[in-house]
C-alpha cells in the first residue's frame, strides 16, 4: 500500500544505460524534475553524489538505493531505474553490476519521511525472485503495478 502511493509509470525508467555515476543519477532524477518534486537538479545530483561518496548505497546483490536529503526537494519521491541487461557499473568500489536502482529524493525539512519507504524497498530487494520479476517488466506501467502491489 505504501509503495503504491509512490509508484506510477512515469517514475520508472526501463533500459537505463551506463555512464558516470553523475550521468546515472541525473537520469534517475529526471522524472522528479519533470513532476516538480525536485526543483534544482544540479543541487540534487550534488547531494546524491556526496552521499554516495560517504558510504555506497549499493548492497550485496548489486541493487543501489541512491538517496539524499536536499533543499532542492519539495516532496518525498521515488524513481525506479531498471538497467539494461547485465546491469551497469555504479559504485567504483563495488565489483558488481547494478541491475536495479531505487532513487529517493528526501526533503531536507522532513529528514525521516522516507524511512518506511526505504524499509519496504529493502525488504522487496532481499528476495531475488521478486527482483528478477521486476527486472523482466515489459513496460514502465507493468513495473509500477508489480512494485506497487508489494505488501512490505
Amino acid at each position, binding site marked *: 500500500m505504501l509503495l503504491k502511493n509512490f509508484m506510477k509509470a512515469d517514475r520508472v525508467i526501463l533500459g537505463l544505460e551506463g555512464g558516470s555515476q553523475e550521468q546515472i543519477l541525473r537520469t534517475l532524477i529526471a522524472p522528479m524534475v519533470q513532476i516538480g518534486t525536485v526543483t534544482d537538479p544540479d543541487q540534487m545530483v550534488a547531494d546524491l553524489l556526496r552521499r554516495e561518496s*560517504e*558510504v*555506497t*548505497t549499493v*548492497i550485496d546483490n548489486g541493487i543501489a*538505493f541512491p*538517496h539524499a*536529503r536536499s*533543499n532542492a526537494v519539495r516532496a518525498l519521491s521515488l524513481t525506479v531505474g531498471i538497467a539494461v541487461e547485465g546491469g551497469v557499473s555504479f559504485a567504483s568500489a563495488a565489483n558488481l553490476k547494478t541491475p536495479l536502482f531505487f532513487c529517493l529524493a528526501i526533503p*531536507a*525539512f*522532513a*529528514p*525521516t519521511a522516507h*524511512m518506511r519507504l*526505504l*524499509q519496504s524497498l*529493502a525488504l522487496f530487494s532481499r528476495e531475488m525472485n521478486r527482483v528478477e520479476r521486476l527486472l523482466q517488466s515489459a513496460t514502465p506501467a507493468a513495473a509500477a503495478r508489480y512494485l506497487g502491489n508489494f505488501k512490505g
Partner: protein
Amino acid sequence: MDEDEHNVDIDKLSRLQELEIRISELDIVHQGSADADAVHTQREALRAQIDPLVLSRFDRLRAAGLAVAHVRGGMCLSCNLSIPQGDLNRINSGKVEPSCPNCGSFVHVDV
C-alpha cells in the same frame, strides 16, 4: 534562559541528527554491515564536541522523533505551529538559543 548564554551550535546538532539518521538508513539497507562503523565513529566524535546539557536535551528530543526541525514561513515543521516574529528575530540574531517556543525542538531557520 538568559540571553547570550546559550551553547547551542545548531550546525553541529543538525550534523549529529544527520549521522543518526544515516545510521538508521544503513541498518535498513545494509543490515548492520561494517559500512556503518565509520559513521558511528563520526557520530561519537561529534557528540564529544557538544555541551552535555545540550546533548541530553538532544537525546530526549530524538527519542521522540526529530531533535532539529526546520522553520519555514515562520512555522516550526516539527510541531507545525507558528513561531512569533520577535522570537525568530532573536534566534536569527543569535541572542537566544535556536529552539521552538512551542515544542522545544532545536530549530534551523530556513532563509
